[in-house]
């Protein structure tokens, strides 16, 4: 088991290094970092000096090493657009994105799992089939369209909720939270719903499919044969057994949350990492793009490791190295 975890950890580190390499390549070979920092019109002498300062004349391996060391310290270079350290920009934007994603994930799980179970247990019911149709739409409709529709209904027509910004934020240390004020909650509601819709539909369909599959299993049949109640079978046995596949695929889907966060933040002008990334792409701000890439990579590796740990906690078959054979 320890060996398994170590192996996964090494894999994770390797992936991160690969991503760092890509970021490094982006940084140094796409566009000109010197022009980016000094401006297009900088004189030759200034450029040469900048090159010296940035250490651009050293060998590739050394520069990469420095790059990785910098990453580990949180030094992502300087933004072309804003001429200040990328690390600082990220610290400002990170809380907004994390809070949005967390609230959306909570909504998605709280709605998706029960709906999934319900539609699995009542397969032929009218409500279940209606929900299934709705979920297909939830997966097909573009997120930005949903966002726009919500803005139209709730901000423009009904004027209940704001259509941009975070509302009132409270600063705690370097973190800014919008969850401590009513205005903050009103501001986060529409974006979180938009972000959550796709995930909810996905989770619901996933839970439903897995549930239906597991209810066909022999141990459920045997449980029924020995008189266990429907509740014990559905929630005690079936539910626990679908946790592993749901977590796997759910974990993989978390990646798409990042993508959807970009879109949602753009629609609602939510000052988070996604909006920052889009602006960087529009202005060819390579340092921010590279930094975002590395952070996303870090996020994925963490998710994968956490998923692995969760597996170990849930499925005892992975824990024991060798099955102990008794005498039959």
């Amino acid at each position, binding site marked *: 088991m320890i060996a398994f975890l170590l192996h996964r950890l090494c894999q994770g580190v390797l992936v991160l290094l690969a991503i760092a390499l890509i970021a490094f390549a982006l940084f140094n070979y796409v566009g000109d970092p010197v022009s980016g920092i000094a401006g297009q019109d900088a004189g030759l002498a200034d450029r040469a000096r900048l090159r010296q300062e940035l250490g651009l004349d050293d060998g590739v391996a050394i520069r990469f090493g420095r790059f990785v060391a910098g990453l580990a310290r949180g030094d992502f270079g300087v933004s072309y657009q804003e001429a200040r350290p990328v690390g600082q920009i990220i610290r400002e934007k990170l809380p907004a994105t994390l809070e949005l994603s967390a609230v959306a994930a909570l909504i998605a799980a709280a709605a998706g799992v029960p709906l999934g179970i319900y539609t699995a247990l009542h397969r032929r019911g009218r409500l279940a089939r209606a929900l299934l149709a709705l979920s297909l739409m939830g997966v097909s409709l573009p997120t930005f369209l949903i966002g726009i529709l919500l803005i139209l209904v709730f901000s423009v027509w009904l004027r209940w909720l704001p259509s941009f910004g975070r509302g009132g934020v409270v600063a705690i240390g370097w973190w800014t939270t919008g969850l401590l004020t009513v205005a903050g909650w009103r501001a986060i509601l529409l974006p979180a719903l938009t972000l959550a819709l796709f995930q909810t539909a996905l989770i619901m369909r996933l839970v439903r499919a897995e549930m239906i599959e597991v209810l066909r299993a022999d141990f459920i049949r045997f449980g029924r*044969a*020995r*008189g266990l109640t429907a509740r014990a079978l559905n929630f005690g046995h079936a539910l*626990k057994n679908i946790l592993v596949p749901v977590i796997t695929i759910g974990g993989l889907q978390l990646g798409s949350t990042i993508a959807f966060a970009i879109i949602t933040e753009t629609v609602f002008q939510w000052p988070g990492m996604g909006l920052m990334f889009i602006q960087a792409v529009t202005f060819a701000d390579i340092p921010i793009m590279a930094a975002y890439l590395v952070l996303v990579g870090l996020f994925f590796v963490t998710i994968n490791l956490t998923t692995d740990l969760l597996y170990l906690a849930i499925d005892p078959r992975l824990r024991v190295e060798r099955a*102990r054979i008794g005498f*039959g």
Partner: protein
Amino acid sequence: MMRPRAEPLLRVDQLRIELPTRRGALVAVDQVTFAIAAGEVLGLIGESGAGKSLTGAAIIGMLEPPLRVAAGEIRLAGRRLDDLPDKAMQRLRGREIGAIFQDPLTSLDPLYTVGAQLIETIRTHLDLGVAEARRHALDLLREVGIAGPEQRFHHYPHQLSGGMRQRVVIALALAAKPSCIIADEPTTALDVSVQGHILALLRRLCRENAAAVLLVTHDLRVIAQTADRAAVMYAGRIVEIGPARAIIDAPQHPYTAALMQAIPRIGGRGDRMRQIEGTMPRLGEVPQGCPFHPRCPSAFDRCRRERPELMPAGTSAAACWLFAGGTAAAGVGEISEYDAAGSEMVATLAKADRV
């Protein structure tokens, strides 16, 4: 252990199971009639698709829809089961009727320990606290012959060997001491070396608890070792029923005879193994008259036209026109008596028996 004319605990009368389709109902099982006394093991033999598992499923009320019981009666201790709503059936399952299925690995939830699953089942049926349930569970584990039950209690299914798992399955099925057990191929998925032990265990426990056992299998050796009486099914019908020894040593129905000839036997003559030509008809393709007649070496005209009912043949009863002469064709009700008489005979033999 001899019960003269024991009142059957489980009675199945003219059971008919149908599969409704858009093109009309297909008959999967028809006119199946048998009775099992307390403490008796009835083996139900047949090829796959013959309807034996369906019969077992019908008794415990677990036919997969759209399959349904279309006619007939199933009675346990006099009380009808086939017309009970599912909720009522659920209360009986585990308590009055139990079932054991083929694959012990997939029969147990892989994510819960043996002990947890035992306690859950025990507390579903018996009103016990956790500590008492635990003691009861340990007793059960000992009863099914698991050494070191205190350790095994905390093990997960995958940590046990196949034989031990099936013992756990038996423990679970017998936790509330049901009076009727359906065992569907309980040893098919196990190593040959282990099969004997499990069957012996099953037999012993069922005798001790005076449970009526329906042992569904395709393996004649299982019948030989464990069953008191046997019924042979073909294309959804019982074609022969009688004492297990008689069925095996002196099969009456041509199908049964062919089955016996198809098994290699130690000490038998060095005859070529004979396969029965053709295949058993599928649902909806059962021929008119006797379902076996297309493959039967002894078929004659009547076999093609009329379907034979069970009639006395030696110590058993066989559904074959070859036995139409002699004693007047007995009605079904009389067959049960005949059956019971046969069961007396077997009980006598059982005393001098291997266990």
